[in-house]
């Protein structure tokens, strides 16, 4: 098939999946936070609130869109575009799975693989700072300006440990291509320990993994580093003056950044689409077992319903889960979707950690936040890089 046509199809698929994930990530976040706080969360629109994202989209589109007269109009309008475009763009180099054959076509589950994939993501995300800084400045509102300044200062400060933490797995892999990074983490040490960078000798990259994740929290402005949106001091931070779809653009940009950071963590440290343990020990059976268990749980609760409507919805969910388990047992489909499953499982777990921490930790103070990165994270990242280099040179 034509390379251009194939790229177009892949771009459409990636965009559709990404936007759906963005919408449902928000539903998942509200549900998880609700259960952490012993509430039910969204439960009115559709079964278990599953149609809530759709309702939110309709609500946001039909909201009045105010453009205050005191703003700097061009930059005020450009800022949300910049934020959402840059955060969507960086997903285009992420490899979601290995090679697949669809309709006689062999292709990678990745839009494109660049020689400088890692640097591409760094470059694009460093452009995302302008969306926030401009939004804060153009709004001509004290809360917005302070939020924008705080946010951009925080993002640039945490970018240093972030890029240094990226450099250590690069020392081991010696490539900037994200696909090759994952391929080099294939295989198992002693027959069971995966050669992921977080486990791999001579110096397991646990420290850089932690630094990367912490900096990732700060880069995406998430709790405990959500100072730019500290609602008790800054109302809503840099998007105070934004409403309707322009507000939604910032919202989606934050979630898209979250997905990029978790995907990148998975690729750099957790072996991308590589399984947790070898297929000889039954790693191929993990997805069907998980889905069967999920189906059984849904079936049990459907038969002993807590609420009346659960009697209908939960058995339907159970059937869906059983069907998914069956798909993972089909040899033809398994080849293609097993890597995808492992990638989605790792990324999903990291996303859950992001949400979990939001439900658990309080917010930092701004001076603590800055001192943490400049006085602790940055020197530790440099030292870790040096130690990694020394040990790699010692143990060839």
């Amino acid at each position, binding site marked *: 098939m034509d390379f251009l046509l194939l790229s177009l199809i892949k771009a459409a698929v990636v965009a559709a999946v990404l936007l759906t994930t963005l919408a449902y990530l928000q539903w998942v976040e509200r549900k998880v936070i609700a259960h952490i706080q012993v509430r039910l969360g969204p439960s009115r629109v559709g079964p278990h609130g599953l149609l809530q994202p759709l309702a939110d989209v309709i609500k946001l589109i039909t909201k009045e869109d105010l453009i205050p007269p005191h703003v700097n109009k061009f930059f005020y309008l450009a800022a949300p575009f910049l934020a959402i475009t840059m955060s969507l763009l960086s997903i285009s180099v992420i490899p979601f799975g290995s090679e697949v054959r669809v309709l006689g076509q062999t292709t990678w589950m990745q839009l494109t693989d660049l020689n400088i994939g890692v640097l591409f993501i760094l470059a694009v995300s460093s452009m995302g*700072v302008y969306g926030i*800084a401009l939004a804060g400045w153009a709004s001509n509102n004290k809360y917005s300006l302070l939020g924008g300044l705080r946010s951009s200062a925080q993002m640039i400060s945490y970018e240093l440990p972030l890029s240094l933490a990226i450099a250590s797995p690069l020392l081991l892999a010696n490539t900037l291509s994200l696909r090759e990074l994952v391929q080099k983490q294939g295989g198992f040490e002693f027959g069971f320990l995966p050669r992921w960078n977080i486990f791999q000798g001579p110096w397991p990259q646990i420290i850089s993994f932690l630094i990367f994740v912490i900096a990732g929290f700060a880069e995406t402005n998430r709790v405990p580093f959500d100072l730019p949106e500290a609602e008790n001091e800054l109302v809503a931070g840099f998007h105070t003056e934004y409403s309707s779809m322009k507000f939604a653009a910032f919202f989606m940009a934050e979630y898209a950044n979250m997905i990029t950071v978790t995907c990148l963590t998975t690729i750099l440290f957790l072996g991308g689409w590589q399984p947790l343990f070898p297929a000889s020990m039954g790693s191929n059976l993990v997805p069907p077992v998980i889905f069967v268990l999920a189906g059984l749980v849904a079936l049990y609760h459907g038969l002993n319903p807590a609420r009346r409507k659960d009697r209908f919805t939960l058995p339907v969910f159970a059937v869906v889960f059983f069907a998914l388990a069956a798909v993972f047992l089909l040899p033809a489909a398994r080849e293609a979707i097993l890597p995808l499953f492992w990638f989605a499982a790792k990324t999903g777990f990291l996303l859950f950690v992001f949400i979990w921490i939001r439900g658990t930790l309080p917010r930092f103070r701004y001076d603590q936040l800055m001192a943490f990165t400049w006085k602790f994270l940055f020197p530790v990242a440099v030292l870790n890089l040096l130690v990694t280099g020394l040990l790699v040179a010692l143990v060839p």
Partner: protein
Amino acid sequence: MDVILFLVFAIIAVLCAINVVVQTHPIASALSLIGVMGSLAVLYLLLGAEFIAAAQVIVYAGAVMVLFVFVIMLLNAGEEVHRGRSFVVQVLGAPLLIALLGLLVYFAQRLFPGAPMVRFGAFRGGTAVAVGRALFTQYLLPFEVTSVLILIAILGAIVLARKELD
């Protein structure tokens, strides 16, 4: 294809550069400068210098321009007030500019008469690995001297800001 892309991004770069001068608001000028940096990065890509393109965006567009934007935001630099241009500038500005560009082209031609034409896609030494090889073997001394340069930059920055720090 490459030639078309080159022309498109070269024109964008020049237009953004003109916009830097023409705009009256400093933030608008700074953003146009980011546009120049971005299109330059694409031009580097067209020439096959992938690492340089990424470094251009990360360091220039991502770091140096953030500093510019910060300074403009923090100093509250407002819109530039248009003053009446002097008679000399109005009459001689454009011809002098054209003369300068002409001279530059002339001397470039004179100094490098037999310079080869650029062929898109012919250069393969622009990957991070190739840059690393050149930087850490052939250009080792300049690289180490760079660290001294960066050290001086740190000292300069702190000295500049010391009044506020004390």
